[in-house]
């Protein structure tokens, strides 16, 4: 088997094991453990057997094309450093698996535990072995997710849920920061390949994006390694089952952060910014973690803070920028993993056997479990940095580095003192742990009767403690070579000379160690009584809990701020939504205005045509009035709107566009009437319409709406003005003006465009118009007016009341004589308007008019009849069937179009000719006029259909009284 395959298998094995583990039945505790142990053991063997390949000095690599378009490949890379870490992860993983067999209770969901456990191991190996930064981020986030699942393993417990969520939030955020940082590095280097990145240290350090990049990368590393100020998630994560803490929170996950820092140290480290960022976070974590650890009552809490402190030590070492510091950091990562994992497992045994982890309740366990106690004592001594144990060696190296000057600053000056004080604290909490748990009075009220655990549960601790001792006594022989290849793979040619030995002679670091040991022991003696009864947490700092701040922030962001955003920006009311839309458009349009320094370039006063200006003043007044009245009196608003429309029509005439004016006028009339008919059925206003009684808030709201309307109108005016006064490029209008007569055979260019040049469009448009009419009809056929609009209008009621009061009148007489004279005139006008429509139609080709205009004029004739005589009278006499007119119109227009195919021309090609008719004279006879006829017919049909439908609503309630016998269906 070559080393690439082995590398691939090393990654794949834990994930495959995880899938397998998930399939076991819930009660198969032993089989499950066997399988998991085999998998982890396999991983140990695989990593170990990769040593010869790694020891040659060149990393083992595996490259699989993955997303080649992005330059991403699935690339694994194992050098000495990665090998050391993967050994650490797999070995401790194996030991923890064995330990878990005895720790987990038969009631727990074992498959879930081992599945996540193995998957986590795979993800962790992924981080270590990634040869590509993106791949590293992927595995990084994967460890966050799986640790979320593992911390929340006992999801019945609230603290497990909170701890899981907090750790995921913090580390997940850090992971995203890391992703952004990696993107920046990739942008600088041009590749995400680890080798390429490691080769371009100078490029990265001199790039302007260097500072953002290290900030983001360090955000990821600090959150993962629980460094100040992101440290508070780790103590909360102690709600996890102890094997999880032993694996994740001592040896692996929290090490990922410092692993990454060490990995990228050659390219990112060594600068002043790096020194300050990591130095400050490291020193703060080192000191505060150690200090807080003294005052914990929970054993695991103590260990968690101690972990924070030790990781701070590693961070501080990496901040110094000296190769020797990096060596010490790598060495301490290993040492810390060994003693901390064994301590966590010991804590688990104590918890398991006695039922509590509270150090104030425990005591005197030495007599009951002497082996465990001895092991824990050795491991604690390693944690405290007692000579002849591995913790001492790396701590000596740390002291030696701390007294050197690296970057002259306060932080650098303070480093030796910080180091000694933190070490003294470490001694204090180590002694406290041992003394409080194993010595002193044996309390009577323990939940369980403690005794030695099964041999296999203790075995992992024994092995790890043995490692502490062996490394501590004969470091050079045991781990020297392994450490060396790891150091060389990180530092390369810069690898300094260092010595792994217990005795270096009487040096300053040794003196510092002695001071720390004595000082720490003295501090414990002083604090002993306080610690036996104190509350959880250190004095004074107790109140300032990172967790509380985190939760406050979370609550603020997630509830208060989110609600604030929603309350201010979100609304379900459509008026406000519309207002926002209009406001945004206003702003969006105003910005270019402002940016382009647009000058209005107003006319000189003398140039203004006074009557025309007055006309516009009226128009503007009408428009503003309509906007104002829209809130109070819809009818007035509509009439004012009509006024503005009329001004527009006159403007068209004024500026020599009579055809537009005619069309506009007719459309204005018809739409005004249709809206009037619709207004009849709108519900009445709720509020009091009298101005004097409206509350001030209502007035303000109305005022604001008027302002919005006015400003929007003004904006549109400005916009139109700006557009019209800019020079416009050559548009298509010139083409139409030139070709209208010679190719379309007509002088009315608009009409020629409609029926000839863009005949196809017009055909589509009239089809739509027909569909709209039918839809309106279909919708209103089943319409029932709202209850509050069903009663007669006020005027009719007054008139009826007058009739009833007077004996000489029959009820309803006044109403029936309503508008008698005008109605007679309008009836007489009916044929006149028809002739007028025909005239408009025929002259349309050359002069203002045309099928559309004629159709609208014809509909106006019907509208007048409705206005004058009322619905019942008109419906009795109406003989036209609008649906047929619509159909006929479409048919004619379509046939004319298809007709040109017969003569071999494209659809809707027109042919023009003038015919001399008797009496009428010469009329244009382009085939387009037939098409126009279709348009005319359809417009009449559609308008009348809608008119009938609207108007018929007014007799709906009458039908109930059986006054009308004509139903709408019969008419249609």
């Amino acid at each position: 088997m070559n080393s690439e395959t082995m590398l691939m298998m090393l990654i794949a094995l834990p994930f495959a094991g995880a899938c397998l583990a998930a399939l076991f039945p819930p009660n198969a505790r032993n089989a499950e453990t066997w399988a998991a142990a085999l998998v982890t053991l396999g991983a140990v063997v695989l990593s170990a057997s990769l040593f010869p390949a790694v020891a040659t000095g060149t990393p083992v690599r595996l490259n699989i094309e993955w997303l080649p378009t992005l330059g991403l490949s699935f690339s694994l890379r194992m050098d000495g450093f990665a090998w050391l870490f993967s050994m650490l992860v797999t070995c401790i993983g194996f030991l923890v698996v064995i330990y878990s067999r005895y720790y987990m209770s038969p009631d727990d969901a074992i498959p879930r535990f081992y599945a996540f456990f193995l998957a986590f191991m795979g993800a962790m190996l992924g981080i270590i072995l990634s040869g590509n930064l993106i791949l590293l981020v992927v595995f990084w986030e994967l460890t966050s997710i799986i640790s979320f699942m593992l911390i929340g393993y006992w999801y019945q417990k609230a603290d497990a849920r909170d701890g899981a969520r907090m750790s995921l939030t913090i580390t997940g955020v850090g992971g995203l920061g890391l992703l952004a940082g990696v993107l920046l590095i990739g942008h600088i280097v041009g590749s995400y390949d680890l080798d390429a990145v490691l080769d371009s240290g100078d490029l990265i350090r001199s790039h302007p994006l260097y500072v953002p990049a290290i900030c983001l990368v360090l955000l990821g590393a600090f959150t993962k390694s629980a460094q100040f100020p992101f440290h508070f998630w780790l103590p909360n994560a102690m709600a996890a089952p102890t094997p999880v803490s032993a694996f994740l929170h001592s040896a692996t996950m929290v090490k990922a952060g410092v692993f990454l820092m060490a990995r990228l140290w050659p390219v990112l480290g060594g600068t002043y910014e790096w020194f300050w960022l990591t130095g400050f976070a490291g020193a703060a974590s080192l000191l505060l973690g150690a200090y807080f650890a003294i005052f914990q009552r929970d054993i695991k809490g103590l260990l968690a803070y101690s972990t924070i402190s030790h990781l701070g030590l590693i961070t501080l070492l990496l901040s110094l920028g000296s190769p020797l510091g990096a060596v010490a950091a790598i060495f301490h990562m290993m040492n810390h993993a060994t003693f901390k994992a064994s301590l966590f497992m010991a804590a688990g045994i104590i918890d398991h056997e006695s039922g509590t982890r509270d150090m104030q309740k425990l005591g005197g366990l030495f007599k009951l479990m002497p082996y465990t106690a001895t092991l824990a004592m050795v491991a604690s001594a390693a944690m405290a940095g007692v000579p002849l144990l591995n913790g001492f060696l790396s701590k000596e190296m740390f002291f030696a580095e701390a007294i050197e000057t690296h970057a002259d600053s306060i932080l650098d000056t303070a480093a030796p003192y910080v180091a000694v004080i933190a070490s003294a604290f470490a001694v204090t909490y180590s002694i406290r742990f041992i003394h409080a748990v194993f010595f002193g009075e044996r309390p009577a009220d323990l939940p369980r009767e403690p005794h030695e655990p099964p041999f296999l549960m203790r075995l992992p601790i024994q092995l790890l403690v043995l490692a502490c001792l062996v490394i501590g006594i004969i470091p050079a022989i045991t781990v020297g070579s392994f450490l060396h290849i790891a150091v060389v793979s990180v530092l390369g040619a810069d690898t300094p000379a260092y010595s792994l030995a217990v005795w270096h002679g009487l040096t300053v670091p040794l003196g510092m160690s002695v001071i720390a040991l004595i000082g720490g022991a003295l501090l414990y003696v002083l604090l002993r009584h306080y610690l036996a009864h104190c509350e959880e947490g250190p004095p004074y700092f107790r109140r300032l809990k990172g967790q509380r701040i985190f939760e406050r922030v979370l609550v603020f962001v997630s509830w208060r701020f989110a609600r604030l955003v929603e309350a201010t920006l979100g609304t379900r009311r459509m008026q406000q939504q519309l207002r926002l839309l209009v406001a945004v458009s206003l702003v969006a349009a105003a910005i270019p205005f402002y940016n382009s320094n647009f000058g209005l370039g107003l006319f000189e006063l003398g140039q203004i045509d006074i009557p025309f200006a007055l006309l516009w003043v009226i128009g503007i007044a009408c428009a503003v009035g309509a906007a104002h009245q829209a809130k109070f009196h819809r009818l007035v608003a509509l009439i004012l709107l009509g006024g503005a429309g009329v001004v527009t029509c006159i403007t068209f005439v004024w500026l020599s566009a009579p055809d537009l004016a005619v069309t506009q006028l007719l459309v204005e009339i018809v739409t005004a009437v249709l809206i009037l008919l619709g207004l009849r059925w709108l519900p009445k206003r709720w509020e009091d319409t009298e101005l004097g009684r409206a509350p001030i808030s209502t007035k303000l709201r109305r005022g604001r709406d008027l302002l919005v309307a006015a400003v929007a109108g003004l904006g549109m005016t400005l916009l139109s003005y700006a557009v019209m006064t800019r020079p416009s490029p050559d548009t298509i209008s010139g083409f139409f003006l030139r070709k209208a007569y010679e190719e379309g055979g007509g002088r009315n260019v608009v009409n020629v465009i409609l029926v000839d040049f863009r005949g196809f469009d017009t055909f589509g448009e009239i089809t739509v118009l027909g569909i709209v009419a039918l839809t309106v009809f279909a919708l209103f056929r089943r319409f029932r007016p709202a209850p509050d609009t069903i009663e007669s209008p006020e005027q009719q009621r007054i008139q009826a009341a007058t009739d009833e009061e007077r004996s000489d009148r029959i009820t309803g007489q006044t109403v029936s004589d309503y508008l008698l004279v005008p109605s007679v005139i309008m009836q007489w006008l009916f044929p006149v308007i028809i002739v007028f429509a025909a005239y408009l139609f025929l002259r349309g080709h050359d002069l203002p008019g045309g099928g559309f205009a004629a159709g609208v004029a014809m509909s106006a004739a019907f509208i007048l009849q409705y206005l004058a005589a009322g619905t019942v009278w008109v419906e009795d006499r109406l003989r036209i069937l609008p649906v047929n007119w619509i159909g006929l119109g479409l048919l004619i227009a379509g046939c004319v179009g298809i007709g040109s195919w017969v003569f071999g021309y494209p659809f809707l090609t027109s042919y023009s000719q003038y015919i001399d008719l008797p009496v009428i004279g010469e009329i244009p006879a382009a085939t387009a006029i037939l098409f126009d006829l279709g348009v005319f017919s359809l417009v009449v049909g559609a308008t009348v259909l809608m008119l009938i439908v609207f108007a018929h609503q007014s007799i709906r309630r009458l039908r109930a009284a059986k006054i009308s016998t004509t139903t709408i269906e019969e008419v249609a």
Partner: protein
Amino acid sequence: MTTALSTSLSLLGPELILAVGAVALLMIGVFSAEQRANRLVTGLSVAVLVAALLWMWFYGRDGYAFGGAIIQDAFGRFMKSLALIGSAVTLFMSVGFAKSERFDKFEFPVLIVLCTLGMMLMITANDMLGLYLGLELQSLAIYVLAAFNRDSLRSTEAGLKYFVLGALSSGMLLYGISLVYGYTGHTGFQEIALALNGSERQLGLVFGLVFVLAGLAFKISAVPFHMWTPDVYEGAPTPITAFMAAAPKMAAMALTVRVTMEAFAPIAPDWQQIIVFISIASMLLGSFAAIGQRNIKRLMAYSSIGHMGFALVGLAANSETGVRGVVLYMAIYLAMTLGTFAVILAMRRKEGNVENIDDLAGLSTTHPLMALVLTIMMFSLAGIPPLAGFWAKWYVFLAAINSGLYALSVIGVLASVVGAFYYLRLIKIMWFDEPVGSFVPVAGELRVVLAVSAAFTLLYVLIGGPLGNMAEAAAMSFF
């Protein structure tokens, strides 16, 4: 018929299939027995959509039709595939809902097909007029669909609201188009770009750009034109919400990309500013406002606002990588949305469908598989590797960083942190809270959608390569 016409028509194969299919289906619906009509027409509609998809994949050619008003290219095919898949899947998912909620009217599938036709026209449009026609066809169908449940006050309100606001935005779009036309003298995208290239930047044209983008932003529900989204998503019947969240977004985004990258390419700095603003606002608002939501459809509405913001990050980059990012983002977003809405449709108790987030409590114990799928979807929507959602974000942020938009990327990452928070809350509710009663068994068609979308999201790392190549080919259409 002239040869030009037949060439044009032959290029429009998929669109013609949909157009003819919709008309034929309407007739089939009208003339078949009432109780069978919906099932029959729904089945046939899915068949029509799939037929259009297959036609496009096997016979699709590049080229211009109708004098350059229509363009067929790799980009269009990619986005149209997404739109067609989105429509077909939502129709497929609606079958069970239609039966149980008395929703089975055959007009529903027909409207979906018509709406999809509108989307296809939007994506193929190479001309402002074609753009507008397609947009309106699509929007009108959705106005009706949103108000489809006429007896429900919320549904009719949703339809009306969407119509009023949509009409306003269409008006703005049209106004913008006419301004652009007024200043360049053209409506074709290439011609507009040519005209812009030669001349200096004019004020009226900037107005035109602003209004066109405002209209388009409304359709992709980007801030500040997003107001309708939560209300309409909540009010509309769930299958229609699923549809609105999936397919039309593809079309509107494709249209936005095409208009900006093609027609307005010479004035890129102008529209980049606008897109950056819209993108930031959408990401932030989508993330923050979603947190307080209790209704899962409203939550998805805000989520979609946020995701459109993320997708626009890619567009803001104005590069080939950026377009590829947008295209892939939309593809991944489609899969995630469909999967999530399949779960929402499956949230059904004996009494009827429920929509509150709290109804999901303890889903992991009552419906472990459904909980697993929703968890995958939520992690993916939150952008957590190695799920598809992570890659989507990765593509667009990569493009933004390569184009030097560092501030945009940083804000985007921050917004996704906030976004992750509410997705995780959902996961917490499913896995850690006490169950509050269980749902009825999940319908077969929903299971299929759940499985496929979950597989896509999980295994994206494996299929990302080929899909990326396709997206790259699509993006190359503009370069």
